């Protein structure tokens, strides 16, 4: 068994030394990206270019489109900034201060990621209603509108930011921070002057992911938007009114804005220096002393709990007790009635999630190497780096429509259509995390391995992969959870198959007696299963930590 594996690796290795083989590996990954990821996500939209006259000719529609795009931009920017500000301290706590409580927090952070977006919207709405803590305190509930949208976006983008930051921080050498401390820097100053600048690439990567996620999210936003209209909501409202023009115009506008922001930030990253002005060291000294760090830590944890975890879980928490009633739990476990659909949905969702993660891992790794190592020059790297983020900045509802249009003539089985849609949506997460991880691995380690006789494949599997494995895991978790909770595009491409999120949407849309309870329970079960999977993954990856 072992020797078979060795022989296989040896075979792959000797193949990788051959120039045309490695070229074709890159070629295939580029082709995969263009044909299966970027093409379907964009061409469907571009083919509708003719319909933009609907918008341009209509003054009222045009000004609605403009203000919706502007709202999207402001929303995404402010949410991402909030994410980073609140995410840095939490990531630092999780990585530097070990302990059972923080391990639990670390696991909790991922929860909102596995909740289907529609139920997440529902849950956030519930949390801030009169039945939540606001009502308990005698305060008026939050009505659907921009405040709730901000809170919602914070709750689903914050976990993405923390996940990426934690992955990056684990790979960061503690020695620099210690050196700063011995040179007289307080913990706060050391973090600001040494740790944070050292992983500015992680900050940028997570900012962009959060930004993109906020720009494109549709399913959950609808639940809490009220009269507020950002890009995706505008598209949805227009589609409901039978107009396709707004989809094309808004999608293109949002994509262009995002690409400009991405590019600007990548350029700025090089010149990015904290502090922008002279920092107040005395203030930082005071901040590092006495109870302040503890109070700060508690505040950060409170933010996590009250703005992310509780809102995301309120639906499950509310209905979870009912799960334990004899009758219902028998029903759920035996899979009778509606629960039969539910369990087949679970199987479908997780199969698709695993498949999508696996396929994207295989094809995005060569792409990430191509980008980060500049295999075909800097310009090519920059182009692919920007293009690879396109699928997550397109509003998910528009992406779904584009997909259907692209594939509809090819009679693709529905299952594979869903897989293709998920591949497009998750691909950017994986590439972004991998690129930023690869950028942090000193290239001379790989080069030395080569001169010691390791072929490209062996070098990758023995040096690059082990050194990047935390980021790889973060990327895989993001991909998997994103696929399991994807709603907007899946709704657009599926007709008979029901993944769990689609099923839950249908339950919400077509209420039946006890449907709210069923949604709550369904979400809880999905959560529990995902948490178990995530915990297993994490334990496996932490087993062999290097001293």
């Amino acid at each position, binding site marked *: 068994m072992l020797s078979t594996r060795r022989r296989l690796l040896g075979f792959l290795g000797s193949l990788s030394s051959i120039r045309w083989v490695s070229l074709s590996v890159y070629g295939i990954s580029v082709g995969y990206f263009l044909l299966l990821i970027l093409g379907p996500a964009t061409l469907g939209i571009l083919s509708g270019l003719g319909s933009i006259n609907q918008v341009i000719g209509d003054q009222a529609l045009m000004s609605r489109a403009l203000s919706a795009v502007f709202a999207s931009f402001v929303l995404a920017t402010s949410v991402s900034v909030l994410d980073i500000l609140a995410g840095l301290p939490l990531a630092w706590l999780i990585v530097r201060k070990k302990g059972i409580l923080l391990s639990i927090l670390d696991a909790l952070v991922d929860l909102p990621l596995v909740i289907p977006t529609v139920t997440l919207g529902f849950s956030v709405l519930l949390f801030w209603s009169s039945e939540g803590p606001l009502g308990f305190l005698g305060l008026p509930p939050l009505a659907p509108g921009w405040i709730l949208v901000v809170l919602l976006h914070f709750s689903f983008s914050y976990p993405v930011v923390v996940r990426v930051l934690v992955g990056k921080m684990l790979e960061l050498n503690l020695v620099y921070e210690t050196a700063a401390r011995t040179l007289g820097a307080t913990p706060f100053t050391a973090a600001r002057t040494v740790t944070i600048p050292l992983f500015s690439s992680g900050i940028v990567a997570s900012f962009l992911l959060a930004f993109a996620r906020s720009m494109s999210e549709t399913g959950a936003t609808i639940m809490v938007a009220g009269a507020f209209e950002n890009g995706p909501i505008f598209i949805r409202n227009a589609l409901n009114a039978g107009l396709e023009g707004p989809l094309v115009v808004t999608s293109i506008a949002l994509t262009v804005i995002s690409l400009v922001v991405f590019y600007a930030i990548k350029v700025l990253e090089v010149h990015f220096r904290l502090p922008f002005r002279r920092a107040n060291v005395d203030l930082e000294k005071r901040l590092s002393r006495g109870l302040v760090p503890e109070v700060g830590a508690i505040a950060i944890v409170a933010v996590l709990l009250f703005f992310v975890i509780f809102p995301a879980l309120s639906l499950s928490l509310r209905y979870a007790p009912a799960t334990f009633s004899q009758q219902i739990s028998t029903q759920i476990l035996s899979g009778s009635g509606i629960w039969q659909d539910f369990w087949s949905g679970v199987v479908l969702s997780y199969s698709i999630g695993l498949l999508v993660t696996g396929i994207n891992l295989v094809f995005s790794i060569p792409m990430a190497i191509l980008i980060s190592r500049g295999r075909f020059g800097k310009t090519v790297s920059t182009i692919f780096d920007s293009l690879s983020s396109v699928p997550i900045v397109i509003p998910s509802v528009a992406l779904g429509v584009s997909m259907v249009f692209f594939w509809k003539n090819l009679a693709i089985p529905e299952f594979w259509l869903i897989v293709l849609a998920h591949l497009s949506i998750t691909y950017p997460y994986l590439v972004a995390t991998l690129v930023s991880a690869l950028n942090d691995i000193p290239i001379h380690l790989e080069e030395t391995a080569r001169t*010691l006789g390791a072929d490209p494949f062996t070098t990758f599997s023995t040096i690059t992969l082990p050194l990047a494995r935390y980021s790889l895991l973060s990327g895989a978790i993001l991909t998997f959870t994103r696929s399991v909770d994807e709603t907007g595009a899946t709704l657009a491409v599926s007709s008979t198959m029901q993944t769990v999120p689609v099923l839950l949407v249908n339950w919400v849309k077509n209420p039946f007696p006890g449907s709210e309870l069923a949604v709550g329970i369904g979400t809880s079960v999905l959560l529990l299963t995902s948490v178990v999977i995530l915990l297993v993954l994490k334990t496996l990856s932490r087993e062999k930590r290097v001293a």
Partner: protein
Amino acid sequence: MPSIELHEVTKRFADVVAINNVSAVIDDGEYVCVLGPTGSGKSTLLRLISGLVNPDGGEIKIDGTGVNEIPPEHRNTALMPQNYALFPHMTAWENVAYGPTSRGVDPGEITARVSTLLKTVRLQDWANAYPSQLSGGMQQRIALVRSLASGAKILLLDEPLGALDARLRLDLRRYLKHFAKEFGLTVVHVTHDQSEAISIADRIMLLRHGRIEQEGTPRAVYFTPGTLFAASFVGDRVLMEGVVRAVHGETVTVEVEKAGEIRARARGLREGELTVVAVRCESLQLAHHAADGLNRLSGRVAEIRPLGSYFRYTVELHNGNRVYSHVPALNALGNNLHVGSDVHVCFATQDALSYKYPERGLAKEVEAF
């Protein structure tokens, strides 16, 4: 059979020519030091030989076979970068075993090879330590045997002693040479430290702006540098500007402004030309009374610094220029010179080398600060 051959090799990075039409032959078992200032193309040379970058022009041969198209892992040239590049996620043992494992060597053979090598560098007790737990010297030795364990017969060392403390550096110089000869290795050792190159190398290649400025035995490069740059880079030398007053075959008479005339060796200089005379500091003798047959300049002792085996005297000449004389410690202790003493600086004609004055100015030419 020659081990490494470079034929008119050129490498450009964007607009910068890192290696400019270099041809060289490095023999089997030879220890060559590539010496040069920062940015002279030394590291690029190693990367070209190891196959990490490919030349834009010319050909590289190893053991007589062209290797331009051969990837690094099939060249058998182990590169040891400046910071050793030990793999941080592997123990010392795993690091050393990396090469043979990658090459698919039989596991029993790997175990034998690694343990033997770890014993040769006396690190067998540290086999399970991670690089971060090892001292700089230990890391260097692990990196060295790791290169060897891969089966490479050509060792490419990029500033191998650069990160070590002075004492260790001197010890390891001797060790490196001994190590290379014991295992019959061909070594290309890149350094910017001329004393390191002189003490280790069988042959020195002085590199500048991507070209070979001079090559030869350490003795040749040290005693008869071919160019003004070589003279200033190898060995401690005093440089004096002057005008050629007379040419007598292989020697010239040079007038140093306000300090007198001196005789120096030169080729191709004409009367009336500006020149720079270079003299090694240890060839400058200090005396109360000038001896016959030697060049002589007068001045006053400005500073005396004991530097171990020799003393460094700073003498201010009457023209205001400063020259430095290295006097063996034993002589210095009995010569009765103090700061302020009037003194003659004497040197033999054959120790003074006269070069054409560089077009772009002296400071720029010798890359002084």
